Structures are given as C-alpha cells and as structure tokens.
C-alpha cells in the first residue's frame, strides 16, 4: 500500500519534531507506528468482511436451503409443510438475503393475517395462520371484535379464538361475539405484562400452579419467559423450570438436566438463544428504530453476522448440532496434518533448494529442478493415489495404512496409542507436503541463486571469506527472506489440499465435513468452514507481511519512506 498521503504527513511531522529533540522524534515514530497498526488492522477486518460477504452470498444462492429429508439416516420420509416451515425458519430461509424491505414483527404479522381473514373468512389458509399464532393474536383480535366488524367474520373469528383457548385448556369456551367480548372483559387483565412477570417469577420459584397458568396463556407469555430465561444466568433448577414451560408452550423440546450443572445450563441457554433468534419476530413487537435497523438485521446475512459476533456459527442442519461443536472435534485433525505438512515442506524444501542453487549450473541440479517442477505440478490427489498404490498396500508394498486415523482396536502392530496415530498420518502428511515441498524448494533455489549473483557476494569472495561462509551467511540468509512471504500463500493451499487429502484418506477433518455439508446442503456448516479458512488465509497473509517486515529492514524502510 503506497502513497497514503496521511501517512506521509504523519511521517513528515515526526521528522519536523525530530529536528528539535530526540524525544519528539520518538513520539512521532510511535504515533506513526500506531497509525500503521490501525490501518493494517482496519484493512484486515475490511477484507475479512468482504470475503465473508461474497462467500455468504454465493453459498446461500447456490445451496438454496437445507435438505428436506427428515433427520436420521434410515428415514427417507419427506417433511410435511409445518415441519418444513419450521426448518426454514430455523435456518433463516424465510428471510431475504441481504436487505429486508418488509420487516414483520408480531403486530404486523397479526394484522396481515387478520386482513387476509377479513377478506375471505372461509379460506382455510388464513384460519390456519391465525390459529397457529395462538394467543399472540388476542390484543388485535379483540380490538377487531370490539369495533363493529361484519357479523360473519366476527363470529368466525370468535370460533377461532375458541379453538385457541380450547387447545390451551380453558374450559368454558366462548361461542358468539358477545361471549367472546365478555371473556376478554373477564380474562383480559391476565394478559397484562405485570401479571405475567409475576407468574414467571413464581414459576422460577417452582410453583406448579403458576406454571399451569402460564401454559394456559400460551404463546403470548413466551417473550416474558424468554426475558427471564436470558436474565436468569446459569442456575440449573430455575432455568429448567422456565425451559419446561417454554417447551410445553412452543413445542420446541429442550432437554434440561436439573443436576447438569453449569455446562448443561449453558447448552440449554444456547439452544433457546438459537431458537429465539429464529422466532423472535413472531412473539415480539419491534420499536421504530428496531424496525429500521431490521432492514439489515432481519436478513439471513444480518442474522448470520449477529451470530458470528457472538462467536456462534449456527446449527448444522445435517448433524443437528451447533457447527462449532461439529468442527471442534475435527479441528485438531486438519490443523495437525496441515502444520505437519508445512513443517515438512520447509524442513525438506529449504535444504533442497539451497543444494540446487549451489549446483544450478551442473546437470544434476538441472535434473533436480525439472523433477521438482513435475512434483510441483502434481496435484495432491494424484500423489495420494500413487502413494496409496505404492505404499498403502493396494498394489505395491504395504507399509502404511491407506485410510482413517486409527486402526481397529488391537489390529495395529504399534498399539492403539499415539504411535498408531502417527503411523496412520504418514501418508496424508506426505501427500499434502509433496507439492508444497517442491514449491518451497524451487522458490528457495531461485531466490538463493539470485542472492548469490549479487555484487556483495563477489565482494565477500574477494575478501577471501570461505565459500561456505559466503553461501550461508550472505547467500542463504538473504535468499531465504522472501520465503516468509510464501508462508502466507500456502495457507489456502493447505485448506483446499485438506479437502482432497481428507477425502482420499477418509480422515475426520474439515475436508470431510465440507463434503458432507456440500452433499446435504448444510449451509451453516459450509459457511463455518469457509469463514475459518478465510480467517486462516488472511491471518497467514498478515503474519507473512509482519514476518517480512520484521526480518527485512529494507521492507521497513520502504514502508517508512512512502
């Protein structure tokens, strides 16, 4: 990044101050460093955001919703409409992608449904909608009934109210418009926030009567229960009581273990938080500012970002678990193999490169260089197949296992412990490292060759320094600096390489999860993996920038000069 006028000015200011006193110069420098750091971080975040946005849009447009197959490997049953609606809601597919022009909160949804009902009271879809919303529609409905609505609509509406009440276990159910209004006259105050708050408090203390009455109030009380749930923190017993009432009202089953302790409570809370994120707008009215902000926040992207800022990646629709929990177990596999391959690539590649650089005018060096070109161009699936074929017992020698991370218990000659793990990971690591090694070696060779052609090498030789000293101190040290930049470029290779290698060797890592996510249209899982890989790539690039900058004073000076 060159030519930022702001930094030129800061730099100049620093130098002006520096004319007067040393302290001023140092302060100027510090400000300059701080500015650089802020700029770099800002750039980093901005790029991260851009990459995640584009990835998100592509993935969402491409994968188009979770699989409609019912959960469970054996069941081939397709989901029915309500289940499908629920699924869509959980994964946000009822929302627009980036901008929501029509933010619908509880009030708006009820009014829309009422209007549709008024237009055609007989239509089953409209009736179903209203009944599904349960007691949430009461404030609007009774207002509607109070003003003189058309006779047929109001009696129909009252019968709907009756249905809802019956479902919630009220025994004398109102039949006509007058009865309905009378019922609301008698029971309306039970729906006041203060009353419900009181009931919720009693439920937390374990009063069954209060729980029963709350359940009778139905979906209307959910938002108050939610507030209490999230305020409660992690005390298991009180949490579970609320959770039970919520489950019985909403039908969203959450297993709450009273004896489970903190961790269990946290899982329960996370589960409800996830549910609430998807369903909040059915239960709550939004303020004006919330509705305005909802333009962005009530979208798939907004919701996903909201989750991301809370450190959550959403639920995996295939594993029916939080994405983080799915990836947690797989992380060490991918990470371990990637790091091992990286280490191997540098440990083998650098000496090889130097060796070639020294011999680059001899046939053996040229031959090696060509061999490395071929190695560099061999994709990991070819290398992996060849290795399995030659060493994995599918044709040639049978030295290494050809897949998996562990043998069957007792089957391995090296026991079931760490040694077995290492034995299993030899082929994947070599496969992944193969091309990377070639890349490092070629790069090192070229770079060291170029460094050895510099005039200062000639000068060193002229001073009579021993050749090994010239090579290692002057040639290699200068020549290897650009390799730091290579490190950053290798991270994306490691990520995509992991997909292929884990597919070939059946390893339980990110790559396997990615393919599972792909085949099952598991958007959240896919996005989780992509975000992690983007993050890894960006940090790799930033780290190699930083490394370059620390290791090479020329880069630093160039930065200062601009």
């Amino acid at each position, binding site marked *: 990044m060159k030519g930022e006028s702001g930094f030129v000015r800061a730099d100049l200011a620093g130098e002006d101050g520096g004319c007067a006193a040393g302290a001023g110069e140092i302060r100027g420098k510090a400000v300059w460093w701080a500015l650089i750091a802020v700029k770099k971080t800002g750039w980093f975040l901005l*790029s991260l955001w851009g990459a995640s946005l584009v990835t998100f849009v592509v993935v969402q447009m491409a994968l188009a919703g979770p699989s409609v197959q019912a959960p469970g490997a054996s069941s081939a049953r397709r989901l029915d409409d309500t289940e499908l609606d629920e699924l869509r809601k959980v994964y946000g597919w009822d929302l627009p992608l980036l901008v929501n022009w029509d933010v619908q909160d509880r009030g708006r949804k009820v009014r829309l449904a009422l209007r549709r009902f008024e237009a055609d009271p007989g239509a089953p879809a409209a009736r179903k909608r209203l009944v599904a919303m349960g007691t949430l529609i009461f404030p609007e409905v009774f207002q509607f009934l109070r003003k003189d609505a058309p006779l047929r609509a109001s009696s129909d509406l009252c019968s709907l109210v009756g249905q809802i009440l019956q479902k919630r276990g009220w025994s004398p159910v109102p039949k006509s418009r007058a009865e309905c209004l009378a019922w609301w006259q008698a029971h309306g105050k039970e729906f006041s926030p203060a009353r419900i708050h009181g009931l919720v408090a009693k439920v937390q203390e374990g009063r069954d009567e209060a729980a029963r009455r709350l359940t009778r109030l139905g979906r209307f009380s959910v938002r108050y229960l939610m507030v209490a749930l999230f305020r409660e923190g992690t005390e298991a017993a009180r949490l579970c009581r609320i959770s039970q009432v919520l489950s019985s009202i909403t039908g969203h089953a959450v297993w709450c273990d009273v004896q489970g302790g903190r961790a269990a409570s946290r899982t329960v809370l996370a589960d409800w938080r996830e549910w609430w994120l998807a369903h909040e707008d059915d239960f709550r009215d939004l303020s004006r500012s919330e509705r305005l902000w909802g333009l962005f926040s009530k979208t798939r992207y907004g919701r996903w970002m909201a989750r991301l800022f809370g450190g959550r990646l959403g639920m995996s629709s295939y594993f029916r678990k939080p994405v983080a929990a799915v990836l947690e177990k797989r992380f060490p596999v991918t990470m371990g193999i990637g790091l091992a391959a990286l280490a191997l690539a540098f440990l083998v590649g650098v000496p090889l490169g130097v060796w070639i650089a020294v011999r680059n005018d001899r046939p053996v060096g040229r031959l090696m260089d060509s061999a490395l070109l071929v190695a560099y161009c061999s994709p990991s699936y070819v290398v992996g197949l060849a290795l399995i074929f030659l060493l994995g017992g599918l044709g040639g020698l049978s030295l290494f296992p050809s897949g998996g991370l562990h043998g069957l218990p007792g089957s391995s000659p090296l026991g079931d412990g760490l040694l077995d793990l290492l034995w299993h990971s030899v082929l994947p690591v070599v496969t992944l490292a193969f091309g990377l090694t070639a890349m490092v070696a070629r790069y090192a060779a070229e770079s060291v060759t170029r460094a050895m052609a510099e005039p200062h090498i000639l000068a060193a030789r002229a001073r009579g320094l021993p050749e090994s000293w010239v090579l290692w101190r002057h040639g290699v040290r200068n020549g290897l600096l650009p390799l730091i930049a290579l490190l950053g470029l*290798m991270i994306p290779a490691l990520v995509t390489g992991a997909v292929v290698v884990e597919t070939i060797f059946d390893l339980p890592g990110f790559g396997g999860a*990615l393919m599972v996510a792909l085949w099952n249209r598991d958007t959240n899982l896919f996005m989780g993996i992509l975000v992690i890989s983007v993050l890894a790539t960006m940090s790799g690039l930033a780290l190699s920038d930083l490394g370059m900058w620390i290791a090479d004073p020329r880069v630093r000076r160039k930065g200062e000069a601009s």
Partner: protein
Amino acid sequence: MRRLWLLLGRRWSVAAAVMYLGVVGTAALTADCLASDLPVVARYQGHWYVLPSVFGRGPLRRFDNESLRRAMGPEDWALPPLIQYGPNQATSAGRFDPIESPSMRHPFGTDDVGRDVLAGIIHGCRSALVVGFGSVAIYLSIGLLLGLLSGYMGGAVDRLVTWAVTVLVAFPTLLLVLVVRGAMGRGSLWTLVLIIGFTGWAGVCRLVRAEAFKQVAAPHVMAARALGAGHLRILFRHVLPFALGPAVVSATFGLAWAILAESAVSFLGLSGDSASWGRLLASARQTPGAWWLVLPAALALVGTVVSINVIAEHLRTRWALGDTEGELSGGALGIEEYPS
C-alpha cells in the same frame, strides 16, 4: 523451421511442452472423431449422417458402433472413429463386474462402470482446455481492465480495486467452485468457467496495476499527454503494452491452476456428465489396484500442467520479468495460488 526454433528459445523442454500441448489441443478439438459411440460419417437406410454424436443422433439414437454395424444393410456404410466408444458409454453393461483391464478391445481398460478409459482421456482434454482457456480469458480481461483503471486513475478507484484484490486472495476459490457445482448437480462446464473466471483475476490485476503505476509516471506517457492524447489512447497505446507481458505470464500460470481446479472438482465427484481426467482418478480411488485408471489420467494431467508451466516460465525469462522483485508477489515463480 529455424524461426520456429528461435521462437521456442532454442530449448528442447519448451519445444516438447509446445508439442505436448499441441497434441492435447488436437485431441480436444477432434475428440468426437477420435472417440465416440457413433461413427464419424455414416450412411444408414438411405440417409447420410456426419458426426451424429455432435450434430444430433436422429434415428441413430438407439445404436452404438457395434449394434449399428450389426444393423447395417448392404447399402449402408459407416466410417467408425478411432476408439469405438464414447466417454460416457457403459460398454460392458449387464456384467457383474464392469471393470476391465487393458485389452485389445479397450487399450487402457475401462473404469468401474465400464466406460472406456482412452475415450475418457481424449474427451478429458476437451474439459480441461475449455475450463482452462475459458476461465483464463475471462479473468485476463477483467484483470487487465481493472488493473489498468486502478493504476491509471489511482485514488478511490485504486483503493476499491486493491480491496477487492485482497478479498479475492483470501477467497477459497476452489471451495466456492465446489459449492456451486454441488448445488447445480449436473451443471455444465461453463459454470466452472464462470466461477474461476470471475474469482481468479486478482493476480493479473495486481501485476497490471503495478505496471500501470510505473508507466503512468514514465516520460513517454507524459509526452503523449503533452501531445494531447486522450485517456483511452494513453491507456491502451502507451500503458497496456507494458502491462501485457506480466499479465500474460501470470495468466499462463493461471491456466495450469484452472486445469488443476477442474480436475480437482471432478475428482471430488462434481464433474456432472463431462468426461474429465479427475473423474477417472476418482474412479481409481473406488477400485483399488486398477493402475490403468491412475496412470494415463495422471500422466495426461501432470503432463499438461508441467507443459504449461514450462512455457510460462520460458515466457517469463524471455520477457525478463523475473526481477520485478516483490511486485510479482509470490514473486519469482509467479505463484499466484498453489495448485491443490
């Protein structure tokens, strides 16, 4: 002849690479004459058919080479292709184990569903080159345009383009290709071309931008401006020629990458119905011990990629682009992104 030799830089490796690519390119162009499940030219029941597998099968729909030969009357006539099987034709249908090792009938054997390997290799040339050249053509033009604009205009445009480049570098292109292919299911090759084309231009753009920056400050551009040349003229006559070299070299390396990406996607089982080297390799994974599935496809793939790399490196040294230190980030080797 001598001029050609000079053009190849008097190097055997480059000549071999060009010849290899020539063979692959010819195979790609003439794939339907070389390997097909229908004759190249046929006369059947009084009608003439030319390349029926390309221009519509018509009444020959029910036949393949063998059954057609059996159904032909004395008047009929057919010129069979070199390999008598199409890339997607299950040649040993109905057998319990359709895989066959190399024989006279199938010189390179068949894969696990009985498709002829040689036909697959020949038609794989086409997939590889279509994806390679198609996507590179797209991203070369995008990269050139944006790079020139950003280097020439500077300011906000430059910031925006630089940002986009940073984003794209961090972008898991191959994974995205996977999503889109996975979602499209049996989508055609062109989706692949479009995705790689629209996400791959970062490297070219960066190089062109750096070059444009350098040239905009150069005296000849100032002279052109003093002579009253317009922006477009300066851009395309005075800046572009300098940027073309690095861009073409980078795009050539990118060609290899795109081909590798295509076969990686096919290897992971997302090739749709297009024959591809990656698909052959994938079937090798399912049938252990079938060396004839690995070897030809691997040779074709690695050979192509090596040839392209050799040519790209030759171009780079020939145009002396090796020493644009740092600007060619990933630098001397012109590595934009390491192939998977």
